[in-house]
């Protein structure tokens, strides 16, 4: 069933939001954001699907019925951006561990 992909997207996004909202370990929050990013990428790629289409490569193509290529470009951009953001967040988590001694989100000093 075609619509199954979108159910998977919603499930992944829900898992990611749950991890970001309820987990106390900073690394788990970063993993949660990564899961939301995977959901967004899956959503983008699945938007371009056409029934019976093949990969959108022109050289040596058997037929001209291809899936859309634009969402694949958008997904690549999104993957690279999320890579940069995840790397930056993880480096911040390392430095927080070095200065505070723990990775707990409840042990914060900036409040009110």
């Amino acid at each position, binding site marked *: 069933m075609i619509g199954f992909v979108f159910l998977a997207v919603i499930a992944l996004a829900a898992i990611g939001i749950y991890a970001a909202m309820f*987990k106390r370990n900073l690394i788990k929050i970063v993993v949660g954001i990564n899961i939301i990013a995977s959901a967004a990428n899956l959503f983008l790629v699945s938007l371009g699907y056409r029934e019976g289409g093949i990969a959108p490569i022109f050289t040596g193509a058997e037929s001209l019925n291809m899936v859309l290529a634009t969402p694949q470009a958008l997904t690549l951009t999104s993957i690279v951006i999320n890579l940069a953001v995840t790397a930056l967040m993880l480096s911040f988590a390392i430095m927080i561990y070095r200065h505070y001694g723990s990775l707990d*989100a409840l042990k914060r000093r900036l409040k009110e």
Partner: protein
Amino acid sequence: MSEIIFSTGSVAWSPLMLVAGVAIAIAIAYLVRAMGSNNYKRSGEQGMAFFSGNRHPDDGIGSENLYWGFFKSMEGYYEFMKKMHSGIVNDYVFWFVLVVVVLLAGMAFGGIL
């Protein structure tokens, strides 16, 4: 004159007239001050701030104590605000997801109706 009068719907005022008025007031205040006596010593008793007869504190008065009455009367509100601005990331994400849910519910159901 209408070049320098700024009028909104129901108010009209001219900034340059205000500046002129303030300048005149400052000039009058300066004239009054110049008519005073100038045997005033900066140091010693005459130069210190007045504390209604109490002892002068050594390290100065903090300005945190300025609005005590306001804080005391709004204590309940400030307790709630302290809980809201807890500083924990998870609470911040919760508020964002709440905004998304409220806007989605409002827009999607408002669009259907």
